[in-house]
């Protein structure tokens, strides 16, 4: 912890506005500082408001059942009187109140059973929607202003291409020359950074050894690797990568 005697606590204004402090203690300490620094409080207000604008840009249509559940729940919730501490107490209370949701869950199971008959067609529709979404996502990465491409070849004619958009924190991966695998094996894609290897999903080549473009999330740089793993994939790589591509670094 380096914040105990931070010489310039106000530099945390951005971190605070983004809710990126590490814990409640750190947060309280900064709020204590805010109460003694009017300029800082003013700045934090503006930055918090700015962060909220980022939030609004993420707007999507809420799920259809949400309104009814919320309206039903507020019928049983006592409203708080005006006070200084905004949502802290409510959050603490909210954490232990998981049981009503469990009841909702059981109700949902019943509904799910009733809907099971219609589920097949629904699934097909979802599948189509999913494919469309993935295509849009691939296109978004390829068209990103900061898109950068890395291509590499390895032994036995294996080659791969990665298009990275760091702004979108996504990359598109495609590959060719991968041999067909028995059903108990799979290819797995990894993002490899120093001290941290993360699965980026399973990839399956078609009959001609081509992996059609897939889009996966990524944070930071490092390398992208492909390994052979037991079907279902592994937590961490268990074999040597067949292909390694170095991601473009942050500038």
């Amino acid at each position: 912890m380096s914040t105990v005697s931070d010489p310039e606590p106000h530099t945390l204004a951005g971190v605070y506005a983004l809710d990126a402090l590490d814990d409640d203690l750190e947060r309280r300490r900064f709020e204590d500082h805010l109460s003694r620094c009017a300029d800082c409080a003013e700045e934090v207000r503006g930055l918090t408001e700015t962060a909220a604008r980022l939030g609004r840009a993420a707007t999507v249509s809420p799920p259809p059942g949400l309104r009814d559940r919320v309206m039903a729940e507020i019928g049983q919730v006592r409203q708080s009187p005006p006070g200084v501490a905004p949502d802290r107490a409510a959050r603490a209370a909210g954490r232990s109140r998981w049981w009503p949701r469990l009841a909702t869950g059981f109700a949902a199971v019943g509904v799910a059973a009733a809907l099971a008959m219609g589920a097949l067609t629904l699934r097909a529709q979802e599948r189509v929607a999913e494919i469309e979404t993935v295509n849009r996502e691939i296109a978004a990465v390829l068209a990103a202003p900061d898109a950068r491409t890395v291509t590499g070849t390895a032994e036995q004619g294996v080659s791969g291409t990665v298009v990275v958009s760091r702004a979108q924190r996504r990359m598109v991966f495609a590959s060719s020359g991968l041999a067909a695998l028995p059903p108990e094996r799979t290819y797995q894609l990894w993002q490899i950074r120093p001290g941290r290897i993360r699965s980026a999903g399973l990839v399956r080549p078609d009959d001609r050894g081509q992996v059609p473009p897939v889009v996966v999330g990524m944070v930071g740089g490092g390398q992208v690797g492909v390994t052979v793993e037991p079907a279902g994939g592994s937590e961490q790589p268990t074999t040597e990568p067949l292909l390694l591509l170095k991601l473009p670094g942050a500038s």
Partner: protein
Amino acid sequence: MEPRQRRAGSDEGRLGSVAPHDGHAGDESLAGLLQRVARGDRAAFERVYEQVAGPVFGLVLRVLRDRAQSEEVAQEVLVDVWRSAARYQSSRGTAMGWVMTIAHRRAVDRVRSAQAAVDREDRLARLEVHRPFDEVAESVETRLERERIRRCLDRLTELQRESVTSAYYDGYSYREVAELLQVPLATVKSRMRDGLIRMRDCLGVET
């Protein structure tokens, strides 16, 4: 109020002069509606719901990347808005800003809870979420706002942008962001602040 916040007369760098805040749907502002909600007015709350449910759910989904969990958390947030409406003070910011702050904190709390943090690494790599920027059904206002945000984000340095978005949209703490981007903690701190200040000025946010 200090000039650096007001930016009176300095429109350079701002994109668009329309700054939608409390989205006056109908004739009553969100802030006004919240006052009525604070007195237990359910009809007013329904109208609040109409204005904030999409932004709340979208933000929570963006952070959690899991629809089922996001529905739960969004429900908690919306009920919290009902419960704490009396605590909203218009002198301290816009009503939408207040609601979004509650939503973001709850989403971050959830994502940082032990198990969720493990799952998230996986979810980041999977694709079960419709990215907000790809959502089909969106209002003109939402689309314009999104466009404005995107253009302002483009004006940040890459490190500023990654610091701000990894923290806000992915719920990483600044320590985690420092690790992810492999830069010193102090750098992340200042990039988050500088980035947000640049965003604030570009968006013309007033306090």
